[in-house]
Structure formats: C-alpha cells, structure tokens
C-alpha cells in the first residue's frame, strides 16, 4: 500500500467501477419499474463483443457504443415481450437469455478474437487535468468514467425529482394503481426495460472498448453481470447506494490485489469471492432488521434506527410480477 498514492488508488477504483456503475444503474432502472432482467451476465458479454466487432470494422467508437446499446436493448426487448406481455416468468426468460447470449457472443465473436482494435484512452481535460488530487482523479480518465459519474446524479434526479421518474417508481410499486391513474404500466415497463438494457449494453462496450479493451475467450468479464445484479440489491434499489456498492466492489478488487501481497498466505480467492457473501449478509441483515422484534428494539435507539433505515432497501413491490389489465 505504501507505494500507492491515494489519488492513484481512487482513480483506479473509479475506472474499474465505471462499467459496473453503468450496468448496475441500468438494472436499477429496470427493476425500479418492476421488471427483473436477469440476463445481465450474458448481455454484457454479447454487447462487449458487438461493440468490439462494430468498432473494429468501422473504426468508430460511436457506432461501437451504439451497436452495444442496441444489443442490450434487443435482449431487454425479449425480456419485455416474453415477461411483460406474454406473462412468462421474467426470471426464466432472463436466465435462458443469460446462457444463450454468452454462447452467442463466443460463437459470433470467434473471428475477432485477440485482434488489436480501437480502444478509448484517458483524455486529460486541458486545464482541469493539472489540478492537484482532482486532476488525476477525475480529469485524466476515459470518457466512460465521466459517463458513469454523470449517470449517478442523473438517474437519482430522474427517479426522485421528475414526474416521469415518479411514474416509473409508481409502476414498479403498484402497476394496478398506476393503471387506475391513467398510466399504461406495461408500456412504461417495456420502455424502461429497454433503457436499462441499453445501459447494460453500453457497459459491455465500456469493457471491450475501454476498461478491458479487446475481445477474446475468455473475455474476463464473465460473472460481472451477476455481480452487477447483486450490487443492485446491495444498494437497495437506490441509485446512489447502488453506485456506492459498485465503487465498494471496485475498491475491494483494487485493494484486494494490494492486500494479497500484504498477506500472501490468504488465498487470492478469498478477496475475489468476498463480495458474494457480503451481498448475502447485506440481504440477510436488511430482512432481519425488518423483523417486528428488532424494530421494537430499535424504537428505543433512534440513532441506530436512523442508520438501519439508511441501510435498508426494499425491492419494488411489483418486482418480477407481470401485470395484465382485464
């Protein structure tokens, strides 16, 4: 740790977290409107492949990112049509898509394996890049990092400060009630599922064009989709906490490497697997805290109760259920 300056460490955390933040926020949007897109692990991979393929062939980042967003949205469309309109279990559709997209990515991406392709690099922003601390932290980063950082307040603002965001949350909580108030819940759900899917696609592109540039087998992002899903829960479906969760995960990853050299006797797997038990513990905690007994106990401890409330997150009530008007 001694060799590593705090700035560099944090800058590295931000860079690592960027695609995760984008993907997790995309999934947050999807789940907030009541749809669960379980296909993230496959979508990320397929989108990463498509982004690389398109950017490689066209030389254009814009096209690469666009194609990836489209890929994510198309996958989300399947979830939407099957899950929302045909009333199939969203989890089943998502799971099948996860496995299929992964294989599809490797099948179609095979010719593009390990080619030198375009990659986004950090663009020091003139003037700002030389600031002490904030310069290296924020202004010598690739664009995706800025995108991820902008997205956090943006999603928060959209959720909690706009009318459409309010509708989005309302649909996720109670589609029937939203329907009685003149909102078409299924259209909303489909729309935001597509938006969320597109963001997941962009996250995939952020990997293959920026953070872990290139395409090949193994791509090195397998499993991150599950992690992103876990982070959404860990973050209690709140964009700020979700982003914090992604940053925490990235921090664990970055610091884990340093820690590994500090404690060589601890197997590397321990640091890598840590986020999963942590996620389970977080979920367990949230649920146990909602127990009547615990709540009563907390009633006499307002400080603690406040902390617990901050920790708590509740899934949107209608998550994963399909609404069908009569």
């Amino acid at each position: 740790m001694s060799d590593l300056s705090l700035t560099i460490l944090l800058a590295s955390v931000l860079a690592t977290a960027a695609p995760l933040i984008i993907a997790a926020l995309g999934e947050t949007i999807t789940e907030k409107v009541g749809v669960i897109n379980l296909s993230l692990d496959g979508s990320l991979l397929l989108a990463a492949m498509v982004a690389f393929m398109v950017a490689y062939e066209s030389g254009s980042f814009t096209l690469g990112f666009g194609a990836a967003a489209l890929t994510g949205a198309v996958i989300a469309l399947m979830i939407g049509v099957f899950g929302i309109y045909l009333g199939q279990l969203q989890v089943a559709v998502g799971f099948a898509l996860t496995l299929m997209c992964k294989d599809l990515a490797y099948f179609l991406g095979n010719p593009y394996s390990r080619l030198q392709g375009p990659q986004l690099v950090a663009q020091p922003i003139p003037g700002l890049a030389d600031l002490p601390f904030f310069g290296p932290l924020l202004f010598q980063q690739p664009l995706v990092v800025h995108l991820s950082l902008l997205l956090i307040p943006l999603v928060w603002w959209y959720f909690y400060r706009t009318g459409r965001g309010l509708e989005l949350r309302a649909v996720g909580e109670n589609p029937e009630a939203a329907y009685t108030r003149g909102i078409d819940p299924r259209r909303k759900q489909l729309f935001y599922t597509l938006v969320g899917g597109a963001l997941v696609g962009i996250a995939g592109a952020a990997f293959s064009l920026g953070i872990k540039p290139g395409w090949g087998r193994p791509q090195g992002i397998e499993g991150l989709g599950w992690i992103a899903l876990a982070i959404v829960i860990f973050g209690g479906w709140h964009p700020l906490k979700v982003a914090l969760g992604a940053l925490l995960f990235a921090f664990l990853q970055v610091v884990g490497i340093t820690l590994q050299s500090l404690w060589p006797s601890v197997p590397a797997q321990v640091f890598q697997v840590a986020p999963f038990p942590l996620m389970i513990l977080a979920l367990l905690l949230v649920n146990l805290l909602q127990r009547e007994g615990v709540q009563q106990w907390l009633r006499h401890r307002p400080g603690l109760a406040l902390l617990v409330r901050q920790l708590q997150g509740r899934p949107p009530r209608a998550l994963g259920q399909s609404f069908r008007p009569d």
Partner: protein
Amino acid sequence: MQIELQQIHKHFGKAHVLKGIDLKVDAGSIHGLVGENGAGKSTLMKILTGYLSRSGGRILLDGEEVECETPAAAAALGIGMLYQEPQDFPPLTVLDNFIVGRDTHPDNHRGRQQARLQNLADQVHFNLDGEAQLEQLTVGERQQLEFLRLLGRDARLLILDEPTTGISDRQKERLFAALHQIRDQGRTILLVSHKLEEVVALCDRVTILRHGEVSGEESAPFHIPRLLALMFDQSPATDAKPQRRAPGDALLWLRNLSASGERTGLHDCNCTIHQGEVVGLAGLSGSGQGLFLRLAAALVQPTAGEVEFHGRSLNRRDHRTMRRLGGCFLPANRLEEGLIAGFTLVDHFTLALRCSRREARAAAERAIDKFRIRGTPDSTADSLSGGNQQRLLLSLIPTGANMVLLENPTRGLDVESAGWVWRYLRKHYAGQGAIVFSSAELDEILAVADRVLVFFDGRVVRDLPMDRVDYQDVAAAMTGN
C-alpha cells in the same frame, strides 16, 4: 354529467357476476349504490372507470355512447373513482402519491403541488403531511388522500367506493359537507356504501344490487327497513336450529387480543367459546371477523393478548397445534387459502386425511355422494363451481374436530343446500365441540347461531345470546349505530 348504464354484464371466467345492470344517474345528484357483499357494486363501478372490461352492455354519458376501455380513457371523459381498496403507492410519500398519475394536473413542481394539496386539504379540513411516508398512514388517511386527489381533478363524475372506511365522525361530517358542495357545483357523485345511514344522509337516489342484479331503486326520503329488505335475501326461516343446549365447558379463550391486518385490525377482543355453542360473527365485511377467526386458528399471531385452546396457549404456535387439538378452519377465499388449484378431490383427501390414495378415493366418492358435489374424484378443485368448491371444503373437515371455525361457510350455496349444510354441521360438530362462523348474511346468522358477536371497525361491539338478539339492533350495530 348524466350517466346511463344499459344491460351491463360481467363474467369472471365462468362466474356471471353482473347480470344485465341498468342504471341511470342524474346530472348533479348524489346517487347511492348499496347491496350486500359480493353483490357486484365494485365490479360495476370498475367497469364504468375502465378498470375492468365488460362482457356486454353500453355506457352513455350525457346520452352519448362512450367506450371507457381504460382508466385513462375514462379519466379523459371526466370520470374519477375512489377505489374501495386504496389504489396507491405505500412506499412513496404522501405528496408523491398526490402527484403521480396521468389523470390529473400535469404539473410536477413539488412546491406548487404541495400548495394544491394543502389547499384541498384545508377545504375539507383534512390534515395530511406531504412528506410523510404513505405506509405510515392508516387506511382511512390513505382514503382521504385519494379523495383529495379526486377533488383536485376536474372530474365531472366522482365515484366513491366505500369512502368512509376508518375516518372519524368529525372528518365524515366534513367529507359529507364537501360532497354536498361538489354536488351543488353541478358535478355528479356515485356513492357505494354499506352504511345505510350515510346513504340516507347523503343521497338523492339509491339503487340496490343483489346477486349482480338490480333489486330496486328508491328516492329520498328513504325507509331503512325497506332498503335492508331489498339488500338481503329474506331467507325462509331455517329449521336448522334444534333445541338450544346449555353451553358446556370453555374450549377457547381470547384475552385482550389485538392484531393488525385486514382493513381495520382487531382491537382488544375478549371472549370465551364453550362446548356446544354455535357462534355467529356478524358485521360488514372486513370489520375484524376474518382476523378473529384466523387468530383463533393460530394462523395469525396477535400483537397483544393471548389465545388459549383446551388450556394451551397458541401464542407462538402455528395452526398445526390447533389442528392436533381438534381445531379446524375454513377460509372464505377458497381457492386462495383453502383449496389447492390443480389438485383433484382425491389429492385433497389424501392431504387432509393423510391416507393412501385408495382410501382417499373412497373418501372422495363418499363425499361426492354425501355433499352432493358435482364432480368426480378426479376433478380439479379449480374446475368446480364456487358452490361445489365450498362443499368440498366442508367435506374436508375432520370427523373428530371439536372447534370448527368457518368463514362465510354457505357463500355460494343455494338456500336448500345451506340448510342441509347447517343441519350437518350442527349434528356432527356442535355436540362434540363448538362452531364459530362469520357470514355476510345477517339472516343466516340469526337463523343458525346460538350466540352473536357483532363486529364493527375491528371491535366486538355486541356479544348477545340468541334470545336477546334483535334484528334491527344488530343491523344497526353492524353499521356503527
């Protein structure tokens, strides 16, 4: 706005719930809609707001036919509804709940909306904190908020489905004053209620529904006994009641029992059930009877107080303990809580009797015979008609049961079958134990029970032996008088 409904029909699957309703509401009037539980009032109103589709019939507004296919379309036509079950978003704040929706002011400025909410609340002297979480509010307060939303809309027709659940008398007065004011502005109000005195106080005209049909229409001034007669079937006196026996030993104690749930919760309930008693629980639906039965069956845990059965406390126990000691519960929503859709009669008997399939088949055949279930041992529960589902449930009561808790046991049975069922239940279970049942039909209770508990707003307001029961008095107590 003048509303005319012509020959409205509604089927839910095979159930024919509305059987050709004609209804005419004059512009600028308050029109009441009354009827017993399940008469079809809410269904009719939901059709009018486009929440439910109709199986047949026409809707005319000011003489012009309209479609009303979705709530959005109805809102555009100026129809607004306060639903019986609050259609809101508990995890959001009060203000968010006030704002959300395409049916109202398209203004998302929180400051202005807060001011509007405040303004509306002041008009009817309601008191709501915009920043509070909705889930911390009582159902009554949630209804108030919904009402304010409705008030704030330019709706020309306001439909209120049971708007006075859980609000205080003072607030009720204000609400009524507001309703009069709205009517005087020329808007039309459709009021659905059980509480006859409210209807009487407010309405210009009342339509009575019974079993999905219009059973009568009355104009002010109203005669309450006549309304009651139109609402409820005056079933021929059932001969189910044999000689009243003296109650035996106490079987079930409920002490200072409170619980949350249903619409009203249950508050501080005390009573003892003795062997040989048939106890009827009277009250409007959702006044606490269901919770009472579930607490007694140890399906719900109380927040305070204690249930004791055969001398054993049921707190922290589940229904299995109750069942081992001879308890048995039959829920009203048969397919949700009682039967297992997709399971055949034989399956059900196998589950209930814990026996081999051969024995279960024999039992199922016997039950089909005895309870006149229209089906075969291999019919699935969901393919049975409502009435036959009820017969199946009844046939599943273990022979040795000594505490039979029944929620609306004869719902969906015709009068004759109901009579048979009561003779059967009395003969087999009243002797060896007690029967506690709720019913939406007061006549049934009066005809069958030895003792009546009257529920109102989550409290037992009367506990009367049969010889002290007076129909008018119980009906009045049920509606809060």
